[in-house]
Every structure is written in structure tokens, then in C-alpha cells.
């Protein structure tokens, strides 16, 4: 610690270089901290949209494959299942160009309330939904996007089924995370029969609510067991993992970003190492003199390494501070508008701060070790001979 004055003086030697190197480390550490919040932020996001007790059941081959409609009834009989609701992808296009612009499903109206007790659906809307065969429940975002009002009629032209259906919007789910359009399964069934078909005998996805979160795993096992020997094997997942599949590509992106970040960190190490070896080289004469007057290998090594480590750690601390400030700003924005709400999930937690600081320390160590060791190891005669 006696050398701290010397370390500080040496850092002040080439202020611009110290500042630039420090700045690079600051930015990199801030970036890494922000990225470290992503997996956690995503999980928090998923937690927000998924309740722990909901399970999705779909064909094992993938969510575009279907299961026999009767399977929903069998799932309802499984122990611990509080409610289950089958849903079928309608693929309805609202605009004339025939493009599906929002998810729309045929659901079992009488089971919606039991499967989604946590959804903010007004009781009278739910009652109307069950009463009117052509009723539709529409997510708040969607209502806003198209300027729809409750009571209004809209027509969707299916891209999957050979029917166009005319709906009456009977209610809305004022939930940002449910931008769906739900309508009564029977309505589609009858429309198909009217066309001379067999009606709706399949289901695309079954949403199950467990009576108790502790039963979720047992239910998933049991459901998959029942389906094992049937014509459509199923895969049951908790809602959270189902959504994270949806988010999967996003997480792939996160992986890529993390890889890129690691490369950035590597670059920073190289930059810092370059600064350190430049500092060591241009001070060769002084270092030789220090050795001559009795500074041992350990003192020289410690002094030079401390210089890089102090710089990296200070710069890293500023970087962590920047990241904290940035997420603070995000949270502020999140408070301004509900649409920005999810941003509030990206929080720099204690562990991220610690990781950021350790990363900086690590960068300093790795960058400083080689040049410092090289300078310290050189015998004093050689060091002197090289400069005189």
C-alpha cells in the first residue's frame, strides 16, 4: 500500500491514454452488466405472463400438429386438474389482404373462467362470452390497435378452415400480455358442420390449470402417460416453458450477444494489456533504476500490476455505475407508459454489480500480468544494459 502514491503518480503520467483505456473498460463493463440483466429480465417477463399453475399440452410433434378433441375430456379427469380448456388455431385474417395479423383461437367458453382466473376479464363479459355463440373476447391491445368497441361486429376469414365467421365482440381482456382473439369453439364446430363436414373434432392445444402448483409435475407426467399409446403423443409443459419456447429465438439472440460481449471483453483485455506493455516499455529506464536501488522482483511486479488493476477496477466501477443509471432510466420510462412496463424488469441486481466489479478486476489482472511479469523478471544488469 506504500506504493499507492507511486501507482497513482504513474497513472497520471499519460492522462489521455489512461482516460482512453479506462473509458474503453468502462463502456465494456457497462455493456456486460446490462447484458447480464437480460436472462433475469426475460425470466421476470415470463413470470409476469405465466402463472405457475398453468400447463400447456400439445402434440409432441410440435404445436402445429393437433390432438383428438376427446383428449381434453380425459385430461380433465386427471388428478389435481382444476380446469382444462382446448383451443384451436383459427388463423383468421381481419383485413382484406388475407394476412393473419393477430392470434385468434376457438376456445371452450365455459372453461375460460376456470383456466384463467388471473386474467382481468370482467364477470359480465365472461357471462356474455358464454351466452352468445358468436361472441368474442378480445385483448385490450388489439381493441386499441383496430379501434374496436365492445358490441361491435367483426368478420375473420380463416386461412385454415373453409369458413368466414362473423363475431360480436362481447368483452375484452384488459391485459397487455393477452393480445388474443378468442371465440366460442361451438361456433366454428357448427359452421363446419353446416358446410357438410364432421365438425371440429380436433384440438391444437389444451391449457390446464393445476389446483396446486405442487401438482404441476405429476399432472404433466400423467397427461403424457395417457397419451403415450394414443395416436397423438403429447408434450406437456408449464406455461412458462411454453412461452420461453416462443422466446427461444430471442434467447438465442441473447447467447449471440453474450458471445459478442465475451469478445468485447477479450478486446478490452488486449487493449489494457497493450497499454500496460507500452507503459512498461517507455519506463524501462526508470524500472531499471528502481531495480538497481533495491526494488525486488516482487515489488516491481506488484507495482506495475497494481497500476493496471487499479485503472481497470476504477473504470469498471464507473461502468457498473453507468449500467445502474441506465436501468434506472429504463425503469423510469417503464413507469411512464404501460407499454414500456416490461423494461422495468431489467434491473442491475447485487450479484450483477459484484460480477461487473470482478470482471474489471479480472481484466486488469489478465492484462497486467504478462508485461509486469516480464519487466519484473528481467535481471537488473540486463535492464540497465538495455537503457544505458
Amino acid at each position, binding site marked *: 500500500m*506504500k*506504493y499507492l*502514491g*507511486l501507482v497513482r*503518480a*504513474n497513472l*497520471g*503520467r499519460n492522462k489521455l491514454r489512461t482516460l482512453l483505456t479506462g473509458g474503453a473498460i468502462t463502456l465494456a463493463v457497462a455493456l456486460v452488466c446490462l447484458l447480464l440483466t437480460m436472462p433475469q429480465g426475460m425470466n421476470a417477463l415470463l413470470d409476469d405472463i405465466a402463472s405457475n399453475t398453468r400447463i400447456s399440452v400439445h402434440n409432441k410433434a410440435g404445436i402445429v400438429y393437433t390432438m383428438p378433441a376427446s383428449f381434453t375430456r380425459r385430461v380433465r379427469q386427471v388428478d389435481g386438474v382444476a380446469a382444462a380448456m382446448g383451443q384451436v388455431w383459427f388463423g383468421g385474417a381481419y383485413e382484406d389482404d388475407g394476412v393473419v395479423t393477430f392470434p385468434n383461437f376457438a376456445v371452450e367458453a365455459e372453461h375460460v373462467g376456470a383456466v384463467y382466473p388471473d386474467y382481468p376479464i370482467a364477470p359480465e363479459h365472461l357471462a356474455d362470452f358464454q351466452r352468445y355463440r358468436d361472441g368474442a373476447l378480445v385483448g385490450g391491445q388489439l381493441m386499441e390497435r383496430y379501434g374496436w368497441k365492445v358490441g361491435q361486429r367483426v368478420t375473420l376469414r380463416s386461412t385454415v378452415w373453409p369458413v368466414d365467421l362473423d363475431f360480436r365482440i362481447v368483452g375484452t381482456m384488459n391485459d397487455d400480455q393477452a393480445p388474443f382473439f378468442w371465440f366460442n369453439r361451438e361456433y366454428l364446430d357448427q359452421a363446419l358442420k353446416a358446410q357438410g363436414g364432421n365438425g371440429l373434432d380436433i384440438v391444437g392445444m389444451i391449457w390446464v390449470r393445476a389446483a396446486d402448483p405442487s401438482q404441476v409435475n405429476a399432472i404433466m407426467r400423467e397427461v403424457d402417460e395417457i397419451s403415450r399409446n394414443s395416436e397423438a403423443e403429447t408434450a406437456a409443459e408449464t406455461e412458462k416453458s411454453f412461452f420461453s419456447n416462443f422466446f427461444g429465438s430471442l434467447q438465442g439472440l441473447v447467447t449471440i450477444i453474450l458471445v459478442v460481449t465475451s469478445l468485447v471483453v477479450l478486446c478490452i483485455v488486449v487493449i489494457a494489456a497493450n497499454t500496460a506493455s507500452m507503459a512498461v516499455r517507455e519506463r524501462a*529506464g*526508470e524500472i*531499471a*533504476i*528502481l*531495480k*538497481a*536501488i*533495491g*526494488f*525486488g*522482483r*516482487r*515489488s516491481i511486479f506488484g507495482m506495475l500490476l497494481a497500476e493496471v488493476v487499479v485503472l481497470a477496477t476504477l473504470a469498471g466501477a464507473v461502468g457498473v455505475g453507468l449500467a445502474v443509471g441506465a436501468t434506472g432510466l429504463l425503469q423510469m420510462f417503464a413507469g411512464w407508459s404501460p407499454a414500456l412496463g416490461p423494461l422495468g424488469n431489467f434491473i442491475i441486481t447485487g450479484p450483477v454489480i459484484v460480477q461487473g466489479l470482478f470482471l474489471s478486476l479480472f481484466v486488469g489482472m489478465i492484462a497486467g500480468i504478462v508485461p509486469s511479469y516480464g519487466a519484473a523478471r528481467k*535481471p*537488473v*544488469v540486463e535492464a*540497465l544494459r538495455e*537503457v*544505458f
Partner: protein
Amino acid sequence: MSTDDTPIPVVAIRGVARHYVRAADDVQALRPISLDILPGRFVAFMGPSGSGKSTLLNIISGIDRPDEGALLVAGEMLNDLDEDELAEWRARHVGLVFQFFNLIPVLSARDNVALPLLLTKLDRAERTRRAETALRVVGLDHRLDHYPGTLSGGEQQRVAIARAIVTDPDLIVADEPTGDLDARNAEDILSLLRQLKNDFGKTIVMVTHDPRALRFVDDVYHLDKGILLEGEDAERAGAAIRMAAGGHVGGGGHP
């Protein structure tokens, strides 16, 4: 060789030699040399470039090690010490002054002088106090807070000398301390070294090309091609140097 009234030499060299292997060449920088330097003497090594002066000085000050021979300096057999032990020994027993790069440019004169004290157990206040005392001895007590860049060459060399004496070493070793200075400053430095010898009884070993030094030192050794000249050879070398200096420097005319 030492009887009761002969003081123990600060430097005792017996058959010390050093050669360097460079590529295919084998450079004999120093042929076996024996010599004693008694306490309180101001000794100069002179000789042409490449004659082995710095090599000998580095060996005496524990910076380099001989290939052969025995070496007792300030009571320690330097042959027995490894690189780290030598560093520690130097810090305690030797004050070093070089031709350039002596000072750390980002430290004040005071902090530069206090540097060797970082290796001791002294606290900060005591280190500062001793550094200031050393700077007073070299006549720079009005430059304590100056940085090397704002000091003249002569002043910088004085700071280096203050740093060399701040640990109160047994031996001061200087390799061409006036090599970079003009005539006036060179004389000032030589007379400062002389004063350290006179006032504090320091033993000083110096390498120099400067004939002016003859007026200040007690003993002159001449080196040529790694050999310590003796007898007639030494006298001839001495005469040549006095000639070069214009004849008006006497052999022992120091104060």
C-alpha cells in the same frame, strides 16, 4: 593482510572476472582483478570506452555477478546472494547514482529521494523527514516540491545523490555521474561527492571520463580492455589524462 591499525576494506575483490557470450563472440569484459577499497576513500575508475568500468562497478554494487573470484562488500560475501537477496542488500548498503534516467518524472524531488525508504519499515512522516534532510545536504532544500522536469541537469543529479545517501549506505557508487553535465555543474557534483566523503566519511566509487575528477578523488584506477593497469602502465594512463585536461590538474590537489 589486515593488521590491527589497517581498517577493514569496504570493498575487497579477489580474482574477480566477467565475460559475456554474445553470439559467437566471447567478450572478456573483465580479466581477473583484485583490489581493496578502504572506508572513507573516494575512488575513481577511468579508462576508454568498453574497458570494463561499468562491468566492475556493477559487480561491486551487487548489480551484476562475477563469473569467477570472490567479492566481499560492506561485510557481505556477494557471491553467496541470489538476485532478490542482492536487491535487498543493495537497498541497505549501496547508494547508486547513474548518468541518466535517475529520477521518476511524476514524483517530486522529495518523493524521489524517499523512494529507497519505501523498502524500509519507516513510516511516512519519517521517510519524508529523512528525504528532506538528504535534500538539505545536497543543497536543494528550496526545491522539495519541484518535479524533475523543472530542475536543471545539475539539480537533478543532486536529487539523485540525495536519494543515494538517504538510506545512509556504506558505499556510494556512481557511474559517470557528470557524463551528462556541463563543466560548471560537473564540478559542483564532484565537489558535492567530495564533501560527502569529507563531512560524512562516505566511501565513494565512481566511474568517470572526466579529467576534472582527478582534483577531487583520492585514488584513481585505470582500466584497459578489462585489465586493471598497474605500475608504469597506470602512470602512463594517468599522465595521458592529465595531458588531456590541459596539464593544470594535479594528482592529489584536492581539498
